[in-house]
């Protein structure tokens, strides 16, 4: 496998990075990077880590990093997690550095500990921390419950002062969305599976409206909605398909949440290298974060509307002869 870290890869411009990943020969991993500057979303780091964890450390080759920002990879714990050496020393800690280094979460207890002890390291205001805890909890629980990933979920996050955003990546190398959704809804393509996974009330555990005692099929819809209401990016990539929620137009007074993710302002594609598992990246803007409770009103309306429409589809129709 080969992965090249470009000078810039954030959710807005991540597409070329994804398309260049070489996912052949899973026994080896070659990491290379832009020689001048590396500025990447945490989800990119999570992807590198997830690939590397399935490879023996001696079969991972990382070319000598020359970019000035190479210390970022060290500080985020990439080399430590992969158990490989890097010739990088961190001289001083940036005062603005608020981040969660690459962390592997393999069970429910580790997740609870992560939520309780690690997320506070981001030093986010109490009103804003709810959204972050919410996103991490729901996404990691999805991985733990549905992905069958042996390595669990790889998580990392970073605060960006200039944009006043927290950017979060959560990645697994499990069975992917299509296989999970297909347990209840037969889908032909990975993109179709992603669409269903983002639709409120759809879960891979049952076709029943309202879900099972354990799953309602609401998690991803909530998270996409958090990004949408705050006019930020959300990206999900599984198999050969990628869906990206684009930033909504700032002149819209009120955010409209749709049950159908393809009605949102988005981009999508089905020509990406095959990723076994699921990749999710989400940005949360702190400056313009709507109160979480306001967001919940919007989510409830969209959710109930979608369920009513689904229910209506199942209504018996009169038989006119």
């Amino acid at each position: 496998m080969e992965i090249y870290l470009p000078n810039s890869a954030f959710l807005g411009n991540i597409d070329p990075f994804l398309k260049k990943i070489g996912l052949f020969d899973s026994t080896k991993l070659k990491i290379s990077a832009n020689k001048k500057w590396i500025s990447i979303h945490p989800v990119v780091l999570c992807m590198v880590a997830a690939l590397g964890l399935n490879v023996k450390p001696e079969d991972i080759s990382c070319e000598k990093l020359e970019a000035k920002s190479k210390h970022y990879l060290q500080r985020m714990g990439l080399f430590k997690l992969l158990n490989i050496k890097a010739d990088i020393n961190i001289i001083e800690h940036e005062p603005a550095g608020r981040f969660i280094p690459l962390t592997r979460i393999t069970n429910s207890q580790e997740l609870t500990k992560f939520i309780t002890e690690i997320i506070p390291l981001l030093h986010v205001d109490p009103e804003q921390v709810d959204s972050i805890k919410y996103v991490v909890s729901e996404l990691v629980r999805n991985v733990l419950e549905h992905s069958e990933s042996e390595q669990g979920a790889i998580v990392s996050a970073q605060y960006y002062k200039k944009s006043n955003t927290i950017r979060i990546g959560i990645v697994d190398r499990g069975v992917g969305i299509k296989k999970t959704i297909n347990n209840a809804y037969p889908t032909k393509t990975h993109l179709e599976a992603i669409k269903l996974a983002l639709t409120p009330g759809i879960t891979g555990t049952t076709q029943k409206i309202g879900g099972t005692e354990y799953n309602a099929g609401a998690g991803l819809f909530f998270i996409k909605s958090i990004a949408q209401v705050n006019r930020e990016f959300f990206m999900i990539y599984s198999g050969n398909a990628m869906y990206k929620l684009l930033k909504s137009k700032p002149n819209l007074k009120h955010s409209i949440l749709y049950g159908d993710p393809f009605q949102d302002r988005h981009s999508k594609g089905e020509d990406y290298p095959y990723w076994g598992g699921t990749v999710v990246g989400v940005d949360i803007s702190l400056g313009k974060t709507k109160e979480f409770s306001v967001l919940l009103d919007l989510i409830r309306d969209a959710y109930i509307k979608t369920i009513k429409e689904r229910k209506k589809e199942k209504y018996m129709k009169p038989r006119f002869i």
Partner: protein
Amino acid sequence: MMEIKIVTIAGSFAENKDSARDIRLTKIIPALENNEEITLNFEGVEGATQSFIHALISDVMRKYGTEALDKISFKNCNETVRKIIGIVVDYMQES
């Protein structure tokens, strides 16, 4: 009347669905079976996920119908928790 302090089991951010399921199976359902009233006390709970609340009450509503809500009270919920409970109760009634 049984009162369950959620924070002692689920912490200040209630997100562990296993804890929610335990509360449901070991406390809520036995109480309902005994025709007892239950108070779920959310004092000290700053936030909760929809998944947690779903694991806590959805199956109760499915098994006992909306009548179960006559027996269950939600106490000391902040606005966020109140709204998440509202969403789950609403969609369970639609399903």
